[in-house]
Every structure is written in structure tokens, then in C-alpha cells.
């Protein structure tokens, strides 16, 4: 080897690499998470100057509590988006599982809490699997399939509601169920802990399992994934199923947290979830993004909501801000991507 490539050449190659932008995209993704933290601190700073009570431990717990359920759903959505798909039906899945679980406890109040949790999860898993089948086997674009199931699942919920009861109230369900949302472990609400555990498990799965890594491959370059024999359909199906499972669990917790569950529960949640995921830097074209980012995205949006509240700014700004956040994030991504490509191109032309 040494016979042809001089050490000088290797050296210059190394230098080029250091000066060049080879590490840039990695940097960009890290910049995204750091940027989110910066945005978070900026919000906290501005708001706490205006309203000091914002800066209390109690308030932070409130924020995390409001974020916990969305974060769980956002974890599932991240898995789907990584594969270059999207799941719009999460809000309906959360609603239906919340209602069914609450109704189950109302009807059979003496069952073990775990049975109810399991019921919700299995229901979510089933609904998510239907999405997965329509997309992977039926070759229906995810946006059409899940826009359809968004309404189908919500409609099902109304059918169930019209045949049973319009609303399950807090007084109808066993206190053990409601305790899911109020229990504290070591002074931290269980809800926050559950969300944290799920995020950690999912992050670990994405980082350390073969399938987790293949999810990235499928979204990053589907054709290349096919070339090395990755079973793309199976992974896409699994991502949708997982999204359903997590939405199911989130629904169980939703019922416990809000106690009063009607047929409109969690309507429109999908927009918050997608906003969190996109703001969190998960690329809507698949292939890149982290659970940490998505969770940070959810926390930023939750903090924003809380801040609006504390600053007495109308809550009506909330939905508009989700929309603006989605647009802003994709526009920013597009600009950064263009800039990176242009610098890479310029670098190549110089060579």
C-alpha cells in the first residue's frame, strides 16, 4: 500500500475531511436537539421574567404531566415517520382506547387494573395493525390510509358510544384506575415516569437493536434497503403496529388522567403529535431523527402552551402555533438541507 499512496496524500485527505463538511449533517441533527433546548430556555427565561410563578417546580411538573401522554404517542409516531410514512389516526386511536378502557372499568369495576391496561394496549395494537396492513400490503399511501382510519376509528367510537353511554365519568370507574395518573413514585408522578420509561425503551430499541437500525435504513433509502435484503413491508407494518400499541397505552392513561371520557376524547391530538415530531427534528422524509428530539419537541410545545396560559394569552393561539411550528420546522429543514447540499457541491467542484 505504502508504495503508491504517499503519506502526504493521506495527510491531505485527512485535512480535507477535517476542513470539509463531512460531519455537517451529524452536526445539524445535534444542533437540532441543542437548538430545541435553547428555544426551551429562551421561553422559560422570557416567561419567568414576566410571570415568576412560571418558574416553580410545581409548574414544571404540570408541564411534564400535560406532555407525558403526547410524548408517548409521539414516540410511536416517530417510529412510523422514520420509515417515510405518517400516522394521522393516532388521535382517534387514543380516543377509542380511552373510552373503551374507561367503559370496561365502569362495567367491571372489580377487575385487576392490569387487565384494563392490557385491554387498551391490545385494542391499540389491533387498530395500528390494521393501518399497517393497509399501507404495507394494500399499498395505500400512508396519508390516505390513516386519514381514512382517523375517521373510521372515531366513527367506531361514536357507534360504541351510541350503544353504551355517551360519557364515562370519574365517579363510574374504580379509584385504582384513576390512580394511574395521580400516583407518585419517589415524589414523581407515575405518568411522567411511564412516559420516560417508554421513551428510554424506544430510544434504546432504535439505538441497539437490529430492527431499530433497519427502520432508519428503510426510511433513508428504500431501494438500497431492498438491495441488501431488508424486509421493508414487515418493518413498516411493525412501525404502524407499534404506533397503535403506544396510542393504546396513551389512551388508557388518558382515561385515567381526565377521568371523564366521551366520544370526542383526544380529537385533533394527531396535529400536536406530528408537530412535536417534526419540531423535534425527525425528518418527515424518513431516515433521520431521534426519540430524544421528538420528546423535546413535545416538551417545547407543552411549555409554550403553559406559557400562553400563564401569560394570559388566549389559548386560541395554540392550534395556530402548532401549524406554524410544523411549517416552520419543514421550511427550516429544507433550507438547511439545501445549504448543506450546496456547500457539498461547491466543495466537489473545487476538488
Amino acid at each position, binding site marked *: 500500500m505504502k508504495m503508491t499512496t504517499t503519506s502526504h496524500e493521506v495527510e491531505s485527505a485527512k485535512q480535507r475531511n477535517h476542513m470539509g463538511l463531512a460531519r455537517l449533517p451529524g452536526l445539524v441533527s445535534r444542533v437540532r436537539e441543542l437548538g430545541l433546548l435553547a428555544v426551551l430556555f429562551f421561553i422559560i427565561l422570557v416567561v419567568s421574567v414576566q410571570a415568576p410563578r412560571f418558574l416553580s417546580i410545581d409548574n414544571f411538573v404540570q408541564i411534564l404531566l400535560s406532555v407525558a401522554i403526547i410524548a408517548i404517542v409521539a414516540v410511536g409516531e416517530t417510529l412510523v415517520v422514520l420509515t417515510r410514512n*405518517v400516522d*394521522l389516526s393516532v388521535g382517534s386511536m387514543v380516543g377509542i382506547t380511552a373510552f373503551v378502557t374507561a367503559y370496561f372499568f365502569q362495567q367491571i369495576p372489580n377487575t385487576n387494573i392490569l387487565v384494563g391496561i392490557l385491554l387498551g394496549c391490545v385494542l391499540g395494537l389491533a387498530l395500528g395493525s390494521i393501518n399497517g396492513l*393497509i399501507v404495507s400490503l*394494500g*399499498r*395505500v*399511501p400512508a*396519508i*390516505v*390510509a390513516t*386519514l*381514512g*382510519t*382517523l*375517521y*373510521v376509528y*372515531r*366513527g*367506531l367510537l*361514536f*357507534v360504541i358510544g*351510541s350503544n353504551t353511554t355517551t360519557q364515562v365519568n370519574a365517579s363510574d370507574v374504580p379509584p385504582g384506575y384513576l390512580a394511574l395518573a395521580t400516583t407518585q413514585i419517589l415524589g414523581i408522578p407515575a405518568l411522567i415516569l411511564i412516559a420516560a420509561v417508554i421513551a428510554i425503551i424506544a430510544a434504546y430499541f432504535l439505538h441497539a437493536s437490529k430492527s431499530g437500525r433497519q427502520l432508519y435504513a428503510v426510511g433513508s433509502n428504500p431501494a438500497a434497503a431492498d438491495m441488501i435484503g431488508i424486509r421493508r413491508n414487515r418493518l413498516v407494518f411493525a412501525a404502524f403496529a407499534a404506533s397503535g400499541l403506544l396510542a393504546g397505552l396513551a389512551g388508557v392513561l388518558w382515561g385515567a388522567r381526565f377521568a371523564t371520557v366521551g*366520544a370526542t376524547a383526544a380529537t385533533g391530538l394527531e*396535529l400536536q403529535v*406530528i*408537530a412535536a415530531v*417534526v419540531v423535534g427534528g425527525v425528518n*418527515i*422524509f424518513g431516515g433521520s431523527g431521534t426519540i430524544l428530539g421528538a420528546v423535546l419537541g413535545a416538551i417545547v410545545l407543552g411549555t409554550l402552551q403553559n406559557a400562553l396560559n400563564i401569560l394570559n394569552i*388566549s389559548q*386560541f*393561539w*395554540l*392550534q*395556530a*402555533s*402548532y*401549524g*406554524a411550528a*410544523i*411549517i416552520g420546522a*419543514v*421550511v427550516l429543514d*429544507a*433550507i438547511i438541507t439545501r445549504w448543506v447540499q450546496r456547500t457539498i457541491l461547491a466543495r466537489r467542484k473545487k476538488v
Partner: protein
Amino acid sequence: MKRLRSLLITWEALLVVLLLISIGVGATRSPYFLSGFNFYALTSNIMEIAIMALPMTLIIIAGEIDLSVASTLGLTSVVLGLLWSRGYPMWLAIGVALLIGIVAGCLNGFLVTKLALPSLVVTIGTLALYRGLAYVVLGDQAVSSFPSAFTNFGFGTIGSSEIPWSGLIFAILLILFVVVLHFSRLGRQLYAIGNNKEAARFSGINVSRVKLLLFILSGGIAALAGVIFTARFSSARPDNAVGFELVVVTVVLLGGVNIFGGRGSLLGVALAIFIVAILQNVLGLLNISGDIQSLAIGLLLILSVLGPNVARRIQVVITRRRLVAGSS
């Protein structure tokens, strides 16, 4: 290729059959179904969706989608209501509402063409944004006192017929859109773009400009639908027409327009509009609530894409078997 064309013809024939069946079911299930008033109710109920489905057809044929139409409707509705309640003349309120629709469409089109973002993501974002702005404008209030000329336009009929005014607007628009899509230069360019964007570009078609135009058109028409909706219910609320984008997309896809662009006709879409209208009407006559109706619409949406996909795969399997059988 002839097979494909005949497949399209069968799709539209299928829609006609579906339409006749739904009329039959409606007539047998409810004695009111065939009444003149029910025709009025059925028609006026779907007209906003029908009108918005026209530009949506063009957009989907050109290979894009606009999910923000219902939110644009909501936004323009509350702007109209707000201006009127603040004492501005009706013509000005309507004018501003239409302008806002056009601006909303412009933003969608700009993001899709200039920044080359996928319309799917852009319009999910603006779906939330425009609806959110509607809440910002009017909060949880509603404007419900409108001049009688305006509300008469909303729920009156033409002369002594059972045709609502919105039906007339739809009919005029339908003719215009049919002319544009099926007989004009622009229509030809739309199909070319949806079929093969690259070949369209190489043929000197300004793809970006055409797409921008489509989104502006979609926004403007959604605003018009907003005016009609406001007049029909005599109510401007920020949650007006929530979820209508589902029905709009459903009628277009059910009408045989290919979700990936390039194929479809307004004849199919017009048939689909009436099928969905009758479906909603019959379910309504059977006392089934709107929320459950959307279950049926959602199913219809999935089936209208899944159905042809499955049919094509079955066809492929059959021809392959035949080939195998023939060669052995």
C-alpha cells in the same frame, strides 16, 4: 393501454351503478327520500364539498394534494362574520374573505413550488395553521346575525324549484372546470404534469407556475365555499366544516382520480359527489349521526384506493398464472 381506458370506463360505470343502488336503497328505506324537499336538503348539504372537490380534482391530477381546504373555509367564514359584525358592508366582507382564501392558497403554493416541499406536509401544517387562525380571529364565539338577503341566498331556492342557489354556483363551476380540465390547454398540461413531470418540463410547460395557480384556485374556491357555508347556516364559527377535507378527498378518489396523479375525470368526481351526498342523506334519514357517517366516508376513502390496488394485483396474479399455464 386500451385495457386501462376500459378500466376507467368501467370505474365510471361502476359509479353509475353505485349511484342507482344508493338511490334505490334510499327510496326503500325512507318514504321521504324521493320528496322534493329531501332533494333540496341532500343537494345543499354537499355543495360546499362539491365545490371544493373541483379544484382538488385538478390538484390531485397534477400529482399534489391540498388538505387545508376545510380550514381555509373555516378561516374565511369567521373573517366574513367578524367584518360583518363590526359593521362593514357585506360586499366588502365577502371580498376580503375571498382574498384571504387566495392568500392562503398562495402560501400553500409558494411553499410547495418555491421551497419544493411536499404538498402533503405543507397542507397538514396549514390545516392546523388556518384553523388555528380561525380560532384566533373569533375565539369560541360565533356570528349568527346576517342580513336576510345573505341568508336567503344560503338556504333559499331558485324560484319555486327545489334547487338551492349553491347548486347553481356548483353547476356553473362544474361546467367551467370541465371545460378547463377536459378541453383547455391548461387541462392538457395538468395531465401531462401528473403523468410525467419531467416530460412536461421538457415540453416547455412551466410546472411551478401551473401548480402555484392550482393552489391559489383551491384557496379561492375554499373561500367561496366558506361564504356559502356561512350563509347556509347563518353562522360564522371557527369550527365550521371541521373535517370536510376528508370528504373532499374521498369524493375525488372515489370518482376514480388516481392518488398519484395523471388520471381521472370530472364526470367520475361528479358521480361520486352525488353518491356521497345520498349516502350521507340516507344515513341521516336513518337517524345516524354525522360522526358515524364519517366512519362510512373514511371506509369509502380507503376502499376507493385499496379496491383498484387489490384488483390490479389479482389481475397480475391471474395473467401470470395464465402465462405459466400457457408456457408449460
